[in-house]
């Protein structure tokens, strides 16, 4: 337990809690996890925190021990981008707060450190994603040739997705471009008769785009009773799937496949 904080400190705590909630949300944490983490940290400062989470905004109210509202904040979220290092880092922070009574300054420091942690090198991501695509192809019944084709297609698709994201295209559009590139390459190889088994090579070339995190989170949120958030995440996952299918259809139309 920390001493009763002054006004500036309360504002600091509230802002940091909002920041933590926002970072968890955009990194792909389930709603239950966000709520638990925020409540766990604020309880250590002896505040009651109530939080309302939607896909694009977070509302947070903090009450002190006399049940007076001491902080009230609303935050718009950054674009969603799955980052599990962030979730792991924030979980670590929340336990340090509980076990070692971290002060707000220390939490902010650690949060900044977690945010600055490097991602995997781009080449590693590209190659491993290509490998994942090739694995999917093998699981769907493709041979070595098909796997090679899917490897190239997935790697190129992810590259395009990264580049279009950098150019600030609409996120769904980025996925469309990636799906189009990957399926065009796969379909091209099939047309040239390199890949003999059609469906595995063509369908699995875009599987690296499947919205696994939104779809699984959708159901785990709903099981948890957060029906609103679950539904929204499900719809998001559905739109992404639809976008991928559109990419496939476009390349089918282009190559008369």
């Amino acid at each position, binding site marked *: 337990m920390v001493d009763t904080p002054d006004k500036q400190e309360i504002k600091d705590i509230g802002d940091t809690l909002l920041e933590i909630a926002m970072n968890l949300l955009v990194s792909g944490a389930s709603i239950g996890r966000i709520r638990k983490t925020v409540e766990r940290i604020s309880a250590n400062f002896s505040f009651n925190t109530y939080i309302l989470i939607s896909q694009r905004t977070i509302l947070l109210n903090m009450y002190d021990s006399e049940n007076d509202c001491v902080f009230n904040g609303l935050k718009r979220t950054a674009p969603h981008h799955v980052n599990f290092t962030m979730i792991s880092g924030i979980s670590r922070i929340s336990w340090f707060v509980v076990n070692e009574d971290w002060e707000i300054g220390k939490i902010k420091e650690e949060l900044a450190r977690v945010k600055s942690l490097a991602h995997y090198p781009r080449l590693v991501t590209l190659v491993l994603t290509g490998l994942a695509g090739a694995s*999917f192809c093998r699981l769907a019944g493709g041979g070595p040739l098909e796997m090679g084709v899917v490897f190239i297609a997935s790697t190129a698709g992810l590259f395009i997705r990264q580049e279009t994201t950098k150019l600030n295209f609409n996120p769904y559009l980025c996925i469309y471009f990636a799906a189009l590139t990957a399926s065009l390459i796969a379909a091209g190889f099939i047309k040239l008769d390199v890949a003999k088994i059609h469906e595995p090579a063509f369908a699995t070339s875009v599987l690296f785009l499947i919205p*696994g995190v939104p*779809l*699984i989170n959708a159901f785990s949120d709903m099981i948890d009773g957060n029906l609103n958030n679950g539904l929204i995440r499900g719809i998001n996952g559905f739109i992404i799937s639809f976008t991928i299918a559109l990419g496939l259809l476009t390349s089918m139309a282009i190559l008369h496949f």
Partner: protein
Amino acid sequence: MEWLLIFEKGIWFGLAAMGFAVLFNVPTRTLAPIFVMGAFGGLTKAVMLHYEINVIGASFAGATLIGFMSIFFAHEKHAPPPIFAIPAVIPMVPGIFAYRMMIGLISLAGKTDNTTYTRILSETTNNGLKVMFILMGLATGVGLPMLITRKDSAKDLRFKRNRKVTG
């Protein structure tokens, strides 16, 4: 030979899980456990499919195994369970079924020929329902350890002897 082919699948499930783990930017120390979990979860599914158990039930069983393993590794490697569980179940997400459903939905919007329409409709419904139920099974399976033990945090949950864990 048949069994060799099934066990070979374990490697591919593991590799696919690892690819997604890197895409989701997991901490490096969790990569190896994710490979193992993906492989074993996938193997469970593959073996059950071999014995002609429904794909929904098989996916649920694989996800449940992954769910329990994620609690174990969460204690070993000091990271929240979903970090391990979500990349590990992704290879079991029914991508091919989802693909067929989407293609079906789009052709349903276009074709009006009565004979093929009914066939496409029933195939699309079948694929779509499979996708939905498999996803539900995956999410439930992964969450099962927490659901049956009614704990708020994996920290309070252990299957082995008591041992002090920090971090």
